[in-house]
């Protein structure tokens, strides 16, 4: 079978770039919700801050797993 196209070099970087799309949107959604909630009811900012940071860390975890996986499976 002939190779028509080949990807060489740091494929891990491409993998990380693709992995960062979802968490980037996810973190944006979490903080957008926090900003909107604070705008609607400013006194709730302290209550919801915990959830904002929790949501950020959970979403960020996936992007960082994408960062680490090339090192784990890499050459």
């Amino acid at each position, binding site marked *: 079978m002939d190779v028509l196209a080949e990807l060489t070099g740091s494929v891990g970087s491409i993998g990380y770039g693709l992995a960062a799309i979802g968490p980037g949107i996810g973190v944006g959604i979490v903080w957008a919700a926090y900003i909107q909630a604070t705008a609607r009811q400013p006194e709730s900012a302290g209550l919801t801050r*915990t959830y904002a*940071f*929790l949501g*950020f*860390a*959970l979403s*960020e*975890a996936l992007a*960082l*797993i994408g*960062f*680490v996986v090339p*090192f784990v499976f890499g050459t």
Partner: protein
Amino acid sequence: MTSSALALGNVLAAAEGGGEGFQAPGLGEFYPQPLVTFSLLGVEFEITRITVWLWIATIAMLVFMAAAVRRPQIVPGKLQFIGESGYSLVRDGIARDVVGPRGLPFAPFLASLFFFILANNLLSIIPFAQISPMSKFAFPLVLALICWVLYIYIGIREQGVGKYFKDILFLPGVPAFMYILVTPIEVLQNFIVRPFTLAVRLFANMFAGHMLLVVFSLGAVYLLSRDNFSIVFGPVSALMAIVMTFFELLVIFLQAYVFTVLMGTYLNGSIEAEH
């Protein structure tokens, strides 16, 4: 010789050797020269500088905590206030609010977890250490396994073996035909995904933070040693290293907090039966 010093030596040698380019730091950063090697029951152990810094950070945190509660006064002094505020963050904010009204017995465990992770993560930005032991996967893995065993044991103790596993396998309040979808998800979630993501979240954050700081710092040295136009970008790289250090400070506190809050959430799920 620290591994960062060796990497710096490589970069400087490449800069003078000319034409070889920037030697990016790789996984060698996380495997420094062992100070002591010994073998126990057929398993090879190494004491590296990372292990020594783990001990130093743990002892420093113990000394700080012991000093904060020595001779407590009704009107607290500065050290006592800091210690009490830190402990109250975990006891009130996590053990009481997240785990629930029956969560106060877990406050010492959660506080130990939080302060252990915090003390070790802070090494990531402290000079001469500059690497967090949590960036070696073994340490977060063991912490996550301890938490995993604990929340399953607490679930069995509080709800009984039959009820605990039945509620995991057959989540209450779900229509019967959905069990095909929900049961594998619940089993994976409780027994595999939770400890795995706890460990990997902490490990990946510390790993990525260290790599970022090392790349920017070594890049600044490399670019500043060039004798062409690239020298303009040297200060940019150094500035990024400084900015990333402050960002790393935020990540340090956040990761310690998130690990503890998630463990509190899992304990809450184990203590209180699903209604």
